[in-house]
Each structure stands twice: as C-alpha cells, then as structure tokens.
C-alpha cells in the first residue's frame, strides 16, 4: 500500500493536483503486483466497485467466444489475424471508415496512446477533478504537466473554466458522463465546447471519453463521433467494458480523423493489434453486430437499478449527483473508507476514494435489482442512525 502511494503521487505537486492523482491510483494501481491481496474478491461478494455490467456480455457474445476456440481448441494457440475484421465491423456499425477506427486493449490503451502522442513537457494534460485518472496518471509518469479543473457545485464539468484551462494544452480529457461523478453534459453544450476549444486553442486535442455513452437516458444525448472524424483535434474513446459487459475481455477503440487514427496506430505498432486477445476480438465482433435491442434492454435495466438506489439514498437525506451512468456519486456524510470497509465486511464492495471528496462522497456502481436490494439493506445497517431515522 505504501509503495502504491509513493509510486503514484510524486511530481504533480500540492493541493488539488495531488488530490486528483489520488491515494490509490486508477481503477487499479500500476503497482498491482505488490498488492495481490487487496484485489482478491471473496466469492459471493456483491461487487459495486468498478462500474461493470453485472450480467456480463450475454449469451450471444459468449457463444462467439466458445466458437472462437475452433478446431478442437487449437485456435487460441494462433496469433489472431482478426483485428481487422473487428475494426471493419465497428466502423460499419458507426457508419465511418475503418481508417477512422483503432482498437485497444480496453480503452486504457487508447487513453494512453492519446496522452502519449498529444501531451509533452510543455503541452499539459487538462482534466477535471475528479475524473477517470488514466490520462493524468500516464502524463505524470511521462513527466508531462497536468492541469486540473474543478467541477461545478453540481459535480458537473464547468465548461467555461475547462475551456479556459484548455488554452495551450496538449490534450483535454473530456469524460462524459464523467467518472466518478456520473454527471452528464448535453450534446449541444459539448459540441459548443469542442468548437470553442478548437477556435481558441487550435493545437489542442480533445479526447471525448464516451465509456458510459450507452447508459445515458437524458434526451439531449448524442455521440461526438461525427465531429471527430472531420476534426483531427477531436478523438472519441469507447469501450466494450461497460454496457457490453466485457470488462474481463479487454477491448476498446478510438474513433477519429484518419490522420489522428493513423498516428495512434503507428505509435502502438501492429496497427494497435498486438495486445488484443483473440477471444476479445471475437467477443467484440459478436457484441457490435448483435441487435441494438441488447443495449436498449441494458440501459433500461440499469435505469431501474439506478432509480431504485438513488431514491433509497434521497429518502434518507443523502444526495446523489444526477447520474447518467451505471454508478452514482453520493454524499454519505462520512469518509468513503469507513463506509467501504464496513460494507466489505458485510459482503458488499463499493469503490475506492475519489479525492478531494473522499471525506464525504462514495461511488457506488449499480448491480442487478436483486443485488441492489441486498446492498441497500447493508448500506442501511452501515449508515446506521442516519438511515434508520429517515426510514
């Protein structure tokens, strides 16, 4: 644990910036090899810590994984040559050209490539506090400066401040919906923001992370892929880890202008395909080609769990942010660590600390309705007096 803190927090400096980098690191510390015990999840635990789809990828995808073994189980022994097929299938589904798409080992590889290519010692990374830490952590590791921007009072991206901070930056990490706060900026406001940054700071690249895109229920919702394919300074990142339920398989992609995608492919080598496992490629093919009703159903399922869980907290006087994702950020009025440890002892795993809000707020992912009914019973016991009074 000590190693993890030391390894991760060193150059960013004091105050807010240091807080952003955080005590524990990203979803999982880069020092993972030192912390095997911390990661182990006891069987039977309700895992609400990592914004996964609790149902996994579904039958269609797992059938494709099964078929990918082929030839008496020999195929996993072959280097896969199928990354191109998945690139084509993703492009087809999105209505773009294959040259607009690069695959990654989860969106992690995409976020790292973009940070690598577009930040430098004199070209900072800009991101909100808090947001998903991969880009900031990587920039920090490379010795590139990180410029943090506070959220507004509703835990949303403050577009004015963000655009100001973007001036002269190498890369803006625009996570929408934002992890861990679950808040969302509408399609029009985002388009305006992209145009403004582009106008005021034409050499700045903006990485729009749409990891939670499929969970948004706000009607003012649209992808920014159309902007990205026309504008070399805008990239959209997507992942199969969230609504598609494939977090364990490791597959994500970026969509952007042909020139930008070409740079990312060249930096990764093998067109970015060298880190991709064959089972994930075939799972991705099945996932992207399946009927869109899969996502509609998953969005509805999540919305029901979300509404149930948010209501439970609201009724007890604990205010969640306006979640448009498969998790929420809620003011529990006590340190996240105390809450987390107590919940874990009762078989429910909630998320790590998110400074600067770790003394008051906790991130809780939405499991199945059944899991959430069990989880709120545990939350009720752990939160004790507050919960009991309101009930």
């Amino acid at each position, binding site marked *: 644990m000590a190693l993890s803190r030391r*390894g991760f927090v060193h150059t960013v400096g004091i105050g807010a910036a240091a807080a952003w980098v955080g005590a524990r690191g*990203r*979803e*999982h*510390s*880069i020092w*993972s*090899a*030192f912390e*095997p*015990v911390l*990661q*182990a*999840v006891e069987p039977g635990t309700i895992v609400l810590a*990592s914004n*996964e*789809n*609790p149902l*996994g990828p579904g039958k269609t*995808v*797992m059938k494709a*994984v*099964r*078929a*990918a*073994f*082929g*030839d008496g*189980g*020999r*195929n*996993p*022994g*072959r*280097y*896969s*040559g*199928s*990354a*191109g097929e998945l690139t084509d299938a993703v492009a087809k589904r999105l209505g773009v050209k294959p040259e607009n798409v690069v695959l990654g*080992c989860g969106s*992690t590889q995409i976020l*790292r490539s973009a940070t690598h290519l577009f930040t430098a010692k004199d070209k900072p990374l800009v991101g909100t506090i808090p947001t998903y830490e*991969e880009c900031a952590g990587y920039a920090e590791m490379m010795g590139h400066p990180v410029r943090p921007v506070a959220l507004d009072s509703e835990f949303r991206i403050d577009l004015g401040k963000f655009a100001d901070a973007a001036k002269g930056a190498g890369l803006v990490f625009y996570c929408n919906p934002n992890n861990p706060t679950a808040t969302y900026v509408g399609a029009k406001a985002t388009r305006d923001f992209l145009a403004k940054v582009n106008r005021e700071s034409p050499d700045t690249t903006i990485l729009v992370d749409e990891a939670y895109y499929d969970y948004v229920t706000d009607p003012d919702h649209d992808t920014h892929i159309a902007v990205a394919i026309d504008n070399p300074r805008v990239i959209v990142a997507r992942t199969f880890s969230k609504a598609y*339920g*494939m*977090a*364990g*398989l*490791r597959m994500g992609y970026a969509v952007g202008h042909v020139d930008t995608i070409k740079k990312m492919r*060249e930096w990764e*080598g*093998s*067109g970015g*395909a*060298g*880190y991709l*496992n064959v*089972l*994930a490629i075939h799972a991705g093919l099945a996932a992207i080609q399946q009927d869109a009703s899969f996502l509609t159903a998953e969005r509805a399922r999540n919305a029901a769990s979300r509404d149930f869980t948010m209501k439970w907290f609201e009724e007890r006087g604990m205010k969640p942010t306006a979640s448009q994702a498969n998790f929420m950020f809620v003011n529990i009025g006590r340190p996240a660590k105390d809450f987390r440890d107590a919940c874990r002892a009762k078989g429910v795993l909630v998320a790590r600390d998110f400074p600067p809000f770790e003394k008051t707020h906790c991130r809780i992912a939405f499991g199945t309705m059944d899991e959430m009914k069990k989880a709120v019973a545990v939350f009720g016991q752990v939160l004790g007096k507050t919960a009991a009074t309101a009930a």
Partner: protein
Amino acid sequence: MLRSRRSFFEIVAGGQTDADVRLWLAARGHEEYQAQATQAADAPRRPKPVPPGVKEIRISSNENPLGPGRAVLDAIVRQFPEAGRYPFNATPGDGALASAIATSYGVKPENIVLGAGSQELLKSAVRAFTSPGKGLVTGSPSFENCPNIAKRLGHPVVEIKVDSAMRLNLDAMATAASGAGLVFLCNPNNPTATVHGASAVEDFVRRVRSASPDTVILIDEAYHDYVTDPSYKTAVPLAMRTPNVFVTRTFSKAYGMAGLRVGYAIGATDTMKPLHRLRMPYNISVFGVTAAIAALNDAKHIEQERARNTDVRQFTVKALDDLGCKSSDSHCNFLFVDVGRPAADFRDACAEQGIVVGRDFPPFDKTHARISLGTMDEMKKATAVFRTVLRPVTTTANRL
C-alpha cells in the same frame, strides 16, 4: 448454463461450425501483420495468398499447432461467468497470476511484471532503457520488435550480424554494448533458432557489466521450453542476482496461448521498477489470467510438447537435408533453412500449394527461409510440397 463446470470439449462440441473453422484458418496472425505493417514502405512484395479451395497449413509464426492443453481450455470455460469483471475483480485476479509465476521461481511478486504478450514488455524495455544518446544493441537477424520500437522513437540501433553458424555473435555484441542503453539477447534466437549455453551467456553478461555496468541486458527466452541442448540453462537465476539483467518469457509458444496475450518479465526488484511503471493496467484478460495459472500447474503438458516438437524437428531437418537444404542447429519450434533462393520465391511457391512459411529475414532473405514446425502430419504434407518446390532449381543447377 455458462456457470456449469462441464469440460471444454462438451461445451464447445455444440457451438462450433465449419464457418468458424474456416474463419480461423483464413486468419494470418498478427506477427505477420506486424512485420508487414512495419516493412510496408520498403516491402519487396506482398506474400502470395493461398489459392481459394486449397487447405492452408500455417507454419509461419512459430505457434504451437495444437494450441493450449486441455487443463487450460477447461480453466477458460470455467471462467466464463467472470467475463464481465475487470481482471482485478475476478477470481483468480491478475495479482494471483503474478504470485503464481513468482512462486514457480521462488521469487517475490515484485520481481514479476505481466505483459500483454512479451511484446508489451519489449516495448516498455526499449522505452525505459534507451534514449537518443543510449541506443539498443541487437542481433541481425533477431526478433524485430525491439529495434522497430527504438527506430520509431528515434533511438539509435546497432545490429550485429550472427556468426557463420547462425548464432548470435556474443563477442561483437558485448563490444557494441559498451555505453548502450539496452542489449536485446534473444536466446534461443528467432529467426535463426540457435541457442547459447549457460556459461556463454554468463560470460557475456559479466563482460558487458564490467565494461558498461549501466547497460541493461534483456534476455528473451520465448523459446525456452523447446531447447534440448544440455548446455543451455535459463538465465532467470542470473537475472535475479545481477542488477540490470532481466528475462522475458511468454505463454505464446510452448504453452500454446499466442492468441491470449500473456507474457512476463522477471528480474531483480530495482531492475523491474521501470517496467512496473510502464505496465498498462488490466493488460491481461480474465481468460488470459486463468489460462496462464492453469498452464503453470500443468508441467507435464510442456514436457510432452517439447518431446512432440523434438520429433517433428528431427523429421523436418532430415527431410530438408535430403533435399540439400541445410538448417541451422535448431532448438526451437522452427527452422532457419538455406533454401538456396530468395525466401520470397520459396514462400510464394509454397503458398500455391497451401503451405504458408515465414517472412523475409534480412540479411539472409536471398537464401534462407524460416519454417515453423507444425504437427507431424502437417510437416509430412509440408515437406512433400517442399520436395516439389525445391526440386526444379536443384535440377537446373545440376544441368549447369
């Protein structure tokens, strides 16, 4: 259904179709893709495809033709319910794989860095240990991954030609290593298939370290499990007791898991720190993690695979010898063979008959081909094709 503990074969039997198999056989593999992408600008010519309707035998990428063992396949299927979990949330988690590898060597987890194939680790090593002022030293020919990355970064590369027996020229490499950032020592060497014994490697390390103690030495043992030379030993103990020396290993070769992308680096704690820092989080899938753990627990499978490969190797070396084509002393699951003509000609002629062999390996691309070893059955078919392909030139030569 997916939670069932039924074995892999029971489950797969229902799901597989001819179309799936065809799809797979058509796949060419990313090792080839990578080489092509890298060489695209100056590629002499594109490899000829296998004609439609001709059954393909792929002996081009040094894969285990049988794939993973039964224990590994069963472990993956048992892990299906965890597909939606991040690798650190699954049971077993990715930390458990690092621990299992560490235990197998009697070292600590901090001595192990996991990679999405050893490829990620080679890339990290070049990034961590070379710079515009401190370059890379590698063999020629050797595995191209490290020099490709160094060139992309604009870091200098010194390539030392192999000796007359196609072995890495350790003397010349040690001399060139002075002041270098990183030495890439592929042992056994891909594509020449030759191996250096333990004492030669130890002498090399001692020599480099006495002249240039800050130079990092990466010993890639991807083909470790196929070596039958009794003078060979793994350099892992050497790496554990020597600063700035580490070993990479992969599950892509004898373990038959090339498609799953699992490799690791092993070395002293301080040597491994920069590689830990560069490691991409969650780089190995839940299936890769569970498969690798199962593979480590199945040592007998590796013994069988080594014996199988040795038989096929002897058969293929002799068949090519009989055609007047001499192979270097192979300790791998592939051969580097003097076919007496450009590799591209040989490759295209073989492809006509469904046999896909390795790419060009300059500076020997005008004379030598790399041929991976498939199953005995595949190599009987392949050598029959080699006889037809290699005969005409022999005849012409006899006439002249």
